[in-house]
C-alpha cells in the first residue's frame, strides 16, 4: 500500500501543490489529472524518489520510501516521457538490458514473446532507430510484461500509441490490477479499464 500525506512540491520558486494526501491499495488504479504544468510529472517523479518533496511523507507498506530505498525501488516500475531505450541496440537487447538492470533477468524466449504481445513480431532484432515512435513506445512498454513489480507509475503511457495498442494497454493494466498490482498514471487520452473503477486525483 502506498500512502502519501501532506505532500508539497515545488519547481524552482514556484509551488505546484501542497497538502496532497491519498492512499492506494492493491488492485487500485489512480489517474492523476490536471492541466499542462500543474505538476503531474513532478508528482510522479516525487513518488519515484527522484525529487525530494518540500514537505510531507510518502510511505510504502508503512515505511518511508527514503528509508526503504533499494527495497522500494525493487517494487516499482516507472515509465517516463522518454522511452529509455537505446537507438543503437535492437528491441530484444533493449528489453533484456533494462529488465536485467531492474533485477528480473529474462530469457530470450520470454523477451521475444513479450515483444510479440506488444505487436512487434518480426521487429525483435531491428535496431530501434529504424522503428517508428509508436513502435519505440511499445518496446518501452514491453518491460511491464516482464517485470513483477507491484507498483506501476506511468507518465503518459499512451503517447504515440495507435488504437490497437491503447486497447492492449487497457488489458495489461486490468491484468496487473487483478494480480493485486497498483497503477498510477497520467494521460490526456481516454483509458477505460474494464471492471475497475478509476480513481481520479485532480491537481490544480
Amino acid at each position, binding site marked *: 500500500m502506498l500512502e502519501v500525506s501532506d505532500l508539497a512540491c515545488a519547481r524552482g520558486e514556484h509551488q505546484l501543490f501542497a497538502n496532497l494526501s491519498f492512499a492506494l491499495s492493491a488492485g487500485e488504479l489512480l489517474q492523476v489529472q490536471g492541466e499542462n504544468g500543474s505538476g503531474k510529472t513532478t508528482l510522479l517523479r516525487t513518488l*519515484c*524518489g*527522484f*525529487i*525530494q518533496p518540500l514537505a510531507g511523507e510518502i510511505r510504502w507498506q508503512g515505511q518511508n520510501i527514503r528509508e526503504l530505498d*533499494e*527495497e522500494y*525501488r*525493487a*517494487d*516499482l516500475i*516507472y515509465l*517516463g*516521457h*522518454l*522511452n*529509455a*531505450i*537505446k*537507438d*543503437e*541496440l535492437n528491441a530484444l*537487447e533493449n528489453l533484456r*538490458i*533494462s529488465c*536485467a*538492470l*531492474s*533485477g*528480473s*533477468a529474462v530469457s530470450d524466449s520470454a523477451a521475444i514473446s513479450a515483444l510479440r504481445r506488444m505487436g512487434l513480431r518480426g521487429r525483435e532484432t531491428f535496431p530501434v532507430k529504424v522503428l517508428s515512435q509508436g513502435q519505440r513506445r511499445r518496446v518501452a512498454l514491453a518491460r511491464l510484461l516482464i517485470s*513483477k*513489480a507491484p507498483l506501476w507509475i506511468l507518465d503518459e503511457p499512451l503517447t504515440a500509441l495507435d488504437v490497437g495498442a491503447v486497447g492492449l494497454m487497457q488489458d495489461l493494466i486490468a491484468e496487473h490490477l487483478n494480480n493485486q498490482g497498483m497503477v498510477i498514471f497520467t494521460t490526456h487520452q481516454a483509458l477505460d479499464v474494464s471492471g475497475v473503477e478509476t480513481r481520479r486525483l485532480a491537481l490544480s
Partner: protein
Amino acid sequence: MSKLSLLSLLGLVISRDLTLAMRRRADVLTTLIFFVLVVSLFPLAVGTEMDMLRKMAPGVVWVAALLASMLSLGRMFSADYLDGTLEQMLLVPQSLSMLVLGKIVAHWMLSGLPLVLIAPVLGLQFDMSGEALLVLVVALLIGTPVLSMIGAFGAALTLGLRGGGVLVSLLVLPLCIPVLIFGAGAVTAVTSGVSPASNLSLLGAFLLMSLLFTPWVSAQALRISME
C-alpha cells in the same frame, strides 16, 4: 524479487556500455586520434633537437592524455541522460555507486586504455629509452583510471547544463594536476637515474583513494542533477 549481485551488475553495465560503443566506433576513435595528433604536433613544432624532445616527452604525453580524456567525458552520462535510460538506472534496486563504477570502468576501457597502449609508439617520436617507455606505460596505466574517476564526478555534476562540456573541463582539470605531476614525474625520475617508485606509489594511492570515494560522490551528484 530476484536481485543481481553487485558484481553481475558491474559486469552488466560494463558490457552494455562496451556494446553501445562498438556500435558507435567513431566516438572511441576520436579520442585516440586526438591524442596521437596532439603528441605528434610537438616534435613538428619544436624541431628535432633530441635532448629537448627527450626532456619534454613525459610532460607532453601526459598533458595530451589529460586533454584527450576531457574530450570524452561529456559522453559518459549525457547520452543516457537524454534518452531517459539514466533515469531508469537511478531506479535500479541496487547500489548506484556500483553502477557508476561500472560506467567509469567502461569509460576507461574506451578512452584510457587505448591511450596507454598507443603511448609507447608515440614515445618513440621523442626518442625515449626503453626503460622510460616502460615507466610511462605503467604510470599511464595507474593514472588514467584516476582521470576517468575524477571526470565522472565532474560529468555527473554538470549533467544537463548548457555549456556543460567546457564547465566540466574547468572543474576537472585542476583536480587532475596531482596525477599529472606524479605521472610525468615518474618518467622524469627514471630518465635522470632516480627510482620512479615513490611517484608510482603516490599515483597508486590516488587510484585507491578515488576508487573509494568517486563512485559514491558521482552517484550523489547524479541524484542531484536528476532532480
